[in-house]
């Protein structure tokens, strides 16, 4: 429990109601969606004004207290697991959309705005904010920027970093730093919005985000291609891209996932299929019609058993429901579900699928794979029970093996879930010793006491 004098200092900033230190409160902020051990903070603070965010940050720095900012706590890499004795700062009450500009197509938001709510507000004005992580119903925009979250539309529309035009954030001393602009073009100074993207709360505390909005596509067409061979499905992905068609979404599901989803919702999926591709093209109606036809043809030419083109909105919703059900359905099977996001160049998807098959056999584990095939971002999902010690040891080895394979193919540790604590140990393997040290030096000069979300991305500071 934190000492009383310190609590008083926090209370002076945010009010007694917004400072929590009872065990039954702090324990509820000891975890996130990653399968890692929990660590309870000493204090949880809930600012209701962004100025208080800066004041709290300065206070933590003054006392050398580790500070972990928490949005919805849905990240899958341990990014919000606090340090023992540290402070968790909640952004949930900082949830205002400050400006939604329909002339210049941007919005300025506080960090705690919920992604789906923001997307709905934007849609109500006839505009479009594409990044749509699977957690969007609860995830916050601050968390999205800090993790550089992506979603189903990443292939064509990009990820959160492609929409962050400007940012203001507090440095460790609580000073407000601003960078970027409301203009589409801006090359004033260092690209600090870029630096803050994927920083996972280790470099600064976001105060306001300026996000780009775009006009929505006028039309869309979805389809489901059914394959009897995983390799054929994987090759179809490359073929579609090679034909210079950029679908809005291009998703993959393996046989295990198909069967599980079908069992979950009795949706009438082809349970004997080796793989499914769920594809959506969007844009101008004429272009959509043409591209849909081409995609259908490519699928058939590459061995699709059938291609089911959505007839209407209901049918389209059904296609996407199957994809949305993938994670819940898998999660229902076993107590623990480890969702990985190793990502490879698209052309390597067939090889990656073979590797995953081998790994599941070698370590005697159930792995269901689905994911964003269009951008090479697969989600091999290991189903296990963490309480089974022997199996858990094999799970950890299998994860190592998955990353070894992905990196050997020129891929990356994380397509969208971030590094956090979960993958910090693999960082050097993907980058280099010099990269880690450069990052640590940078961190050290921006955060000399190492209070900002210590232990994440680059592990501990070198002293």
């Amino acid at each position: 429990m934190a000492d009383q004098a310190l609590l008083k200092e926090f209370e002076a900033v945010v009010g007694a109601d917004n400072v929590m230190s009872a065990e039954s409160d702090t324990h509820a902020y000891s975890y996130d969606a990653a399968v890692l051990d929990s660590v309870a903070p000493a204090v949880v603070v809930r600012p209701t004004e962004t100025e208080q965010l800066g004041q709290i940050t300065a206070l933590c720095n003054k006392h050398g207290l580790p500070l972990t900012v928490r949005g919805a706590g849905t990240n899958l890499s341990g990014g919000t697991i606090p340090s023992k004795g540290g402070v968790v700062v909640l952004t949930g009450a900082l949830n205002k959309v400050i400006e939604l500009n329909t002339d210049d197509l941007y919005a300025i938001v506080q960090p705690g705005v919920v992604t789906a709510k923001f997307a709905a507000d934007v849609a109500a004005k006839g505009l479009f904010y594409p990044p749509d992580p699977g957690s969007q119903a609860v995830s916050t925009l601050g968390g999205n920027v800090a993790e550089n979250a992506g979603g189903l539309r990443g292939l064509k529309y990009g990820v959160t970093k492609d929409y962050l035009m400007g940012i203001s954030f507090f440095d460790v001393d609580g000073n407000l730093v601003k960078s970027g602009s409301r203009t589409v073009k801006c090359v004033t100074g260092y690209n600090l919005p870029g630096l803050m993207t994927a920083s996972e709360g280790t470099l600064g505390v976001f105060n306001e985000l300026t996000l780009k909005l775009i006009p929505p596509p006028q039309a869309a067409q979805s389809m489901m291609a059914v394959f009897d061979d995983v390799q054929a499905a994987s090759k179809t992905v490359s073929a579609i891209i090679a034909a210079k068609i950029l679908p809005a979404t291009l998703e993959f599901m393996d046989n295990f996932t198909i069967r599980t989803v079908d069992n979950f919702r009795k949706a009438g999926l082809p349970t004997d299929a080796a793989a499914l591709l769920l594809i959506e093209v969007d844009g101008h109606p004429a272009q959509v019609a043409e591209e849909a036809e081409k995609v259908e043809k490519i699928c058939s030419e590459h061995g699709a058993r059938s291609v089911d083109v959505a007839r209407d909105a209901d049918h389209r919703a059904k296609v996407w429901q199957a994809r949305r059900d993938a994670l819940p359905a898998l999660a229902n099977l076993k107590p623990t579900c480890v969702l990985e996001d190793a990502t490879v160049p698209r052309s390597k998807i067939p090889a990656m699928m073979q590797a995953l098959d081998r790994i599941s056999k070698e370590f005697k584990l159930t792995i269901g794979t689905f994911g964003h095939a269009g951008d090479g971002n697969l989600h091999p999902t290991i189903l296990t029970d963490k309480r089974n010690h022997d199996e858990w040891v094999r799970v950890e080895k299998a994860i190592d093996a998955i990353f070894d394979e992905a990196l050997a193919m020129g891929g990356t540790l994380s397509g969208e879930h971030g590094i956090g604590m979960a993958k910090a140990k693999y960082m050097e393997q993907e980058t280099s010793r010099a990269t880690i040290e450069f990052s640590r030096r940078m961190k050290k000069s921006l955060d000399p006491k190492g209070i900002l979300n210590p232990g994440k991305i680059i592990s501990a500071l070198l002293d």
Partner: protein
Amino acid sequence: MADIQKLVTMLNELDDQLVNCMRCGMCQAVCPVFTETGREADVARGKISLLDGLAHEILKDPKGVKDKLDRCLLCGTCQANCPSGVHVLDIFLKARAILTGYFGLSPAKRAIFRQLLTRPELFNKLTSFGSKFQGLFAKPVNDVLGTSCARFQAPVIADRHFPRLADKAFHKIAPAMDQPAGSSGKRVAFFPGCMVDKVYPKVGQAVLKVLAHHGVGVFMPHGQACCGIPALSSGDRDSFEKMVGTNAELFANADFDYIITPCATCSATLKDIWPTMVDDEGLKARIAPVSAKVLDISEFLVDVLGVTALEGASGKKVTYHDPCHLRNSLHVTAQPRTVIKATGNASFVELPNAATCCGCGGSFSLQHYDISKKIGDLKAKSVEDSGAETLATSCPACMMQISDRLSQRGHSVPVKHVVEVYADSLG
């Protein structure tokens, strides 16, 4: 107080259910309490982690955990939307029983459950006595809604606009019944539930009228006990089993096709909670056939009697609020709407956010009136926005909560049970 080791052992029995929560946090999107407070300990994920912490001795504050566990409407919205299929309500009810076993029941609750609700005769006498004197401490505030408020400061009532206890309870108005099957060929057992009996007897009368209209034989013994959910949700499993036992005496050996209720909470309790939460094997076996025959009144009208929506109906705008227990636990949503449309003299309008909880949650509204009020206000605002001239629903507890909030906001949209709306149309 029992020793903490025993508490840990008992909580560990929940472990298999607790581990199924993958901590995805998706329940934050739907939990009405979290929406108001933004606190993780108020949402299913947080509560489950607290119980897990207690079970594994990472956390050592059972009192704190109990307080957090009580901050829940038991509305089941999280469970209905949980991607991992976590049995949240099951976990919460069992954990409340375990923690109540550890701390003991509060004296007030002990008196209410052990001395009163388990003894229907006494409960009836007392409420009938109370109804005669309530005018002394309550003054009417809204005639359309039939709400009153306290004349004096009363801690439990606060500034609620509550419906008065009925002058005459339903069991006083309606005789005990044991009719054979009527022209429909069906005979049902009627379980009005205590809210209908003591606060809304007109709902019970509407049910009888509708059943008579459709030629359904009614079996309705007097001396029915409460369904038991108030005791169970406060962690008092013993009283709960007693109440189930009393009801089993009345219903287990009787012959009927269905057992129907106009109370969403009762339906869910009889159907889902009796079979899962009764411990005594003998009692479990006796009530299983009763539970299997439970139908909500609208479900019975539509699915069994074949009541259908009438085309081209017009009239006053009626909207419908989905009670949590009907929607989340029993997945009954279409039938009540069909019944409203079957009246032929109402134009049905959909309520914005019809599926969100009204914020009542039984004793939750007593213990956390401030939060309950805010959640209820969202519902009342939706009713106002819908432009409806009548709000219909399928649970007397929801009727009470929504009347309170509408009344407080100075609105006089009448709040009725679906079956009342239907009975009115029968002339």
